[in-house]
């Protein structure tokens, strides 16, 4: 499926031709050089209009945009302010030709209309402003798939040590020794959030450990869907370790969708159940520190991880270990050592390397470009392919 994307680029280039007609000068009207053009990068049905106004003429009170489809009568579309210079007309029929003119109104009387401009709205098959992104995303995806495949084929893949994750085992073990539960907080967002998804995968690994060690695992969630997924995953983990009897569905429960209601509820759980290990992995907002400080006050080992840049500092200040940004997504590979996941990590590294090269090359050429024009062209090219409309 993915290989179709580059083909689309070519198809798109062929299709992305827009027909537009520019009006002839009508020197008597307030509005001059009206142009109509198929709106770019839409699903059709739109026409972009642009115009200039006579510089020396008095401003009319308002202007009315009029439209005629294939020779029908003129019908008003909307009122324009005299200072406007562009407008996109929408909800048109694709393939029909529409003519436009602008009529200035002063003191309740219509002035001389502008010359006509016409265009045909067309459905676009490729967003021309996103071709650069499409190409880069396709290449990166292919690289990631390539390494996943390598991993599956049993290529030995190295992964560096991640302190927060080596501590997982110790944390669960400590909870068992102390006879206290393990608390797992999967963030406050729903299952459509990639960090929540990543967190669920890690939960599976943590649950295997708690099943092995036999310590109770509590998972309060802020979303009903997350609760369902967490139940499935934990049940599966307990099954895999051969302890299905130890699985307790009741310990994975929904609190409330409300951010601070959830924080209040989880704080209550912390001070009353006194967990010995607390995991906070997923998307967190302002509740991060409310949870982390309370967790710390009950003396739990805390392992946190999020890709939310604004919350990482709080976790660093209040938790024993913090997975920063991408480390959260590396966690499932690290804990499971599954070849395909390690391969995916290798692919991510390749993608980062690619961006680093682009940045370094771009900066060097942009800097050189101030004195030497060809270098500036390279920098310009790199800026263009990384910009997205």
């Amino acid at each position, binding site marked *: *499926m993915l290989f179709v*994307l580059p083909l*689309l680029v070519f198809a798109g280039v062929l299709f992305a031709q827009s027909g537009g007609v520019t009006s002839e000068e009508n020197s008597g009207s307030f509005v001059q050089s009206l142009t109509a053009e198929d709106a770019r*990068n*839409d*699903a*059709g049905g739109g026409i972009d209009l642009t115009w200039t106004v006579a510089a020396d003429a008095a401003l009319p009170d308002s202007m009315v945009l009029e439209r005629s489809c294939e020779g029908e009568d003129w019908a008003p579309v909307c009122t324009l302010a005299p200072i406007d210079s562009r407008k996109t007309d929408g909800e048109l029929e694709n393939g029909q030709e529409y003519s436009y003119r602008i009529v200035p109104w002063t003191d309740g009387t219509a002035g001389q209309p502008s010359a006509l401009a016409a265009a045909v709205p067309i*459905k676009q*098959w*490729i*967003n021309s402003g*996103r071709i650069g*992104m499409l190409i880069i*995303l396709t290449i990166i*995806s292919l690289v*990631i798939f390539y390494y996943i495949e390598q991993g599956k084929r049993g290529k030995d893949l190295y992964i560096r040590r991640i302190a927060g994750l080596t501590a997982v085992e110790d944390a669960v073990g400590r909870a068992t020794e102390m006879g206290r539960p393990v608390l797992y907080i999967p963030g406050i967002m*729903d*299952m*459509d959030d*990639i960090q929540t*998804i990543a967190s*669920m*995968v890690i939960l*599976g690994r943590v649950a295997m450990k708690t099943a092995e060690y036999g310590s109770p695992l509590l998972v309060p969630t802020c979303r*009903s*869907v997350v609760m369902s*997924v967490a139940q*499935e*995953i934990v*049940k*599966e983990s307990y099954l895999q370790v051969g302890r299905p009897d130890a699985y307790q569905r*009741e310990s994975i*429960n*929904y609190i409330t*969708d409300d951010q*601070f*209601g959830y924080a209040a509820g989880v704080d209550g759980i912390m001070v*009353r159940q006194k967990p010995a290990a607390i995991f906070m992995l997923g998307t967190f907002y*302002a*509740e991060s*520190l*409310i949870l*982390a*400080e309370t967790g710390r006050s009950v003396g739990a080992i805390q392992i946190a991880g999020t890709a939310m*840049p604004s919350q990482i500092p709080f976790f660093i*200040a*209040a938790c024993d270990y913090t997975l*920063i*940004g*991408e480390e*959260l*997504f590396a966690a*499932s590979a690290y804990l499971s050592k599954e070849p395909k*996941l390690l391969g*995916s*990590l290798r692919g*991510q590294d390749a*993608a*980062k390397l690619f*961006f680093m090269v682009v940045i370094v090359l771009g900066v060097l050429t942009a800097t050189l470009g101030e004195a030497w024009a060809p270098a500036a062209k390279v920098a310009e090219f790199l800026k263009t392919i990384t910009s997205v409309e």
Partner: protein
Amino acid sequence: MRLAIPLMITFVAGMIMIFQFFVPATQSIGETLQEWYMIVASFAIFLGSVNLLYVHTHRIRFKGRNWKYSPVTIIGFAAMIITGLVFGIEPGKPFDYMFTQMMVPMGATMFSLLAFFVASAAFRAFRASNWRATLLLISAFVVMLGRVPIGAMIWGKIPLISEWIMQYPNMAGQRAVMIGAAMGMVATSLRMIFGIERSYLGGAD
């Protein structure tokens, strides 16, 4: 096999969302799909409510720890549902009154607990234990000073230095985190869409 249909749905839904980003002609399909997704996710809230009520009735019946507070939760829950369904949710109705007079202050209070926690976390964590921790401490301290008028009174350049830290080193750090995390998200999404990662469906391979 039991996962075949769900995996197919994930794949199709994911691909539609990617396609509609690049192919304007398919945007309307993407919009419909997003609306569907919102509806399906919304239905799940009933599941959560059932779970909440189950947990608390269970606790009352078996006299679990702190069971005496469970009726409070159930009454609060019922009060919102009943007033919402009976009187509506417009401003001035009981539902809105309970929301603005009770829930909002409680939310604001929980939020404002952060002022205390930030103070205790800063006190404990910001120690010059090694040179990197010292850098963290200094940058936090300078930025804090730069955000209050007193900083400028101590030395006129402090707000400028604070701005500089925010605009340069801070931006660089944030960017590195963002780009790295975006790669993690792209890879995770790809694994989801192509069914390489399927544990969320409750079936590890």
